[in-house]
């Protein structure tokens, strides 16, 4: 969907530094300065590292058993994923950013795009500084902020910000941007994966600047329309909408403000089912499966009614890409958070704990899964094909009953759910 109004003058990308590891430290000041790693729940691979852990040469995605000696030797604090904590802190970060700017588009659990119109863009540097300071103060999380003419430039700026003092700005055409594009490998651009980077190299395109200056037809032939959009974005022309944005490998988010306020549960249910469906499509397109789903609902911050905002995490029994299970989980989450009497402005879901659908380790439970699962792939493929051909939502699911008790993930080394369970609140 392309909107007819003019694009924002500037974009900012707010990106939390080492988010999971920073969450683990929030209530554990003893962990400051000590290396921290976080493991995925299902297969024990490293999914997050503090700077100290990165410096030890521990790689993303590495199975824990392969680096066990190293972890012990350097007294690394090892945690199972604690999505109750990460989700709650993520929410706080987003709310804090929203207290300074009118629109925030959450992109992943730890990143958000902020469109800045002409008036805000005039103070972009100051807004970025204030946002960074306020998020640190209110939530304890340090963020890097990249500002750029387009999302792609903002994203690139945030990567540079992370390595420097936390702030960076890339205006299309500025000498600094020119310099950065010339030394950024094409594969480091947002949305250009390893395979695409290889194709580009074969065609003699090595840097971000090469991509930007590439002939339209040529880049399109090499990387289809997504590559062309990226080239436009590097030139400073807004071309990537949120719905088409490359997914973050960590989380898939589908969330949107309502056109009109909603007060009834049914309206939220429908909205969430739609988001679960959209997120499911993305999940399958990326050949991933999710182990967890978070539901988030809220009233408007700027309205004159009382503010209410709540989220719930639903653990899926098995990693899944089945829209039926996602919709069911979304309903279950809504049951947990819905309160009558509020005027809701926004609802959304986030899929987390993502793993490749093929080639990943098989969960023992899958072998004893109900027969319906066996047809999941075929059914979902048919569903996606119909919806691609006849438009989104042609085929969709009627409401389904409640799910069984959620299968509990393995999380032997999970930290306390510091912010969401009474018995696990920090003691002082």
């Amino acid at each position: 969907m392309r909107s007819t109004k003019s694009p924002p003058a500037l974009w900012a990308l707010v990106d939390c530094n080492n988010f999971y590891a920073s969450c683990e430290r929030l209530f554990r000041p003893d962990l400051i300065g000590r290396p921290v790693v976080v493991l995925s729940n299902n297969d024990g691979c490293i999914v997050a590292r503090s700077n100290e852990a990165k410096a030890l040469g521990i790689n993303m995605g590495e199975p824990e058993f392969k680096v066990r000696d190293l972890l012990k030797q350097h007294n690394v604090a090892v945690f199972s994923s604690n999505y109750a904590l990460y989700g709650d802190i993520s929410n706080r970060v987003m709310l804090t950013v929203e207290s300074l700017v009118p629109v925030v588009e959450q992109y992943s659990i730890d990143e958000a795009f902020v469109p800045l119109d002409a008036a805000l863009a005039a103070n972009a540097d100051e807004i970025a500084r204030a946002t960074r300071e306020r998020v640190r103060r209110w939530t304890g999380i340090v963020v890097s902020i990249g500002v750029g003419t387009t999302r792609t430039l903002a994203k690139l700026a945030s990567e540079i910000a992370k390595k420097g003092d936390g702030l960076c700005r890339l205006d299309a055409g500025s000498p600094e941007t020119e310099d950065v594009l010339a030394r950024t490998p094409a594969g480091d651009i947002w949305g250009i994966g390893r395979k695409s980077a290889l194709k580009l190299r074969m065609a003699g395109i090595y840097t971000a600047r090469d991509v930007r200056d590439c002939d339209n037809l040529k880049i399109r032939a090499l990387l289809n329309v997504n590559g062309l959009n990226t080239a436009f974005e590097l030139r400073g022309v807004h071309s990537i909408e949120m719905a088409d944005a490359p997914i973050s490998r960590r989380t898939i988010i589908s969330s949107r403000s309502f056109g009109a306020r909603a007060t009834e549960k049914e309206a939220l249910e429908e909205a969430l089912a739609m988001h679960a469906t959209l997120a499911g499509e993305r999940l399958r397109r990326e050949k991933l499966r999710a182990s967890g789903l978070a539901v988030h609902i809220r009233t408007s911050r700027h309205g004159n009614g009382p503010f209410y905002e709540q989220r719930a995490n639903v653990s899926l029994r098995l990693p899944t890409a089945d829209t039926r299970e996602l919709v069911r989980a979304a309903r279950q989450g809504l049951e947990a958070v819905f309160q009558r009497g509020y005027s809701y402005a926004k609802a959304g879901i986030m899929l987390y704990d993502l793993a490749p659908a093929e080639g990943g380790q098989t969960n023992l439970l899958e072998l004893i899964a109900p027969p319906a699962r066996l047809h999941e792939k075929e059914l979902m493929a048919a569903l996606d094909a119909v919806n691609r051909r006849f438009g989104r939502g042609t085929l969709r699911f009627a409401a389904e009953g409640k799910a069984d008790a959620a299968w509990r993930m393995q999380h032997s080394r999970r930290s306390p759910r510091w912010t969401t369970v009474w018995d696990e609140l920090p003691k002082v």
Partner: protein
Amino acid sequence: MSGTKAYPVSGAERLDPDAARGEPLYLSPVTAGFPSPAEDYVDRRLDLHEYLVKNPAATFFLWASGDSMIGADIRDGDLLVVDRSVEPAHGSVVIAAVEGELTVKYLARKDGRILLVPANEEYPELDITEQEDAVVWGVVLYAIHKVTPGALGAR
């Protein structure tokens, strides 16, 4: 001598504990003109969370443990409502991170020194002026405890 009185929470003030201090009301009573969309919800059940949490993004709950703040009416087992967005001042009850632990103390500024002061003479003051890893984590706004039935003795 006036005793401790209790009075029912009523009207708009119930939605904003600061109303009594003349700060802006959360909801304004609607008298004329277009009805406020909020009007539909005025009869909602009171929500304690709304009363205690002014800034949801920055507010955390922690349990108090120990008796070092007994003089500040913070008892072992109290639920503390902590707001990180509030500016700590001399005399604030704060959560501080000191030597790898979170602790609750008074914050004091005395002769250019920064001190963490317990509300119990059995515990020492802590001078954190030179401790680089010591930080004020947040400001304690409420301590919630269950009222214990008292022993009335011969009365």
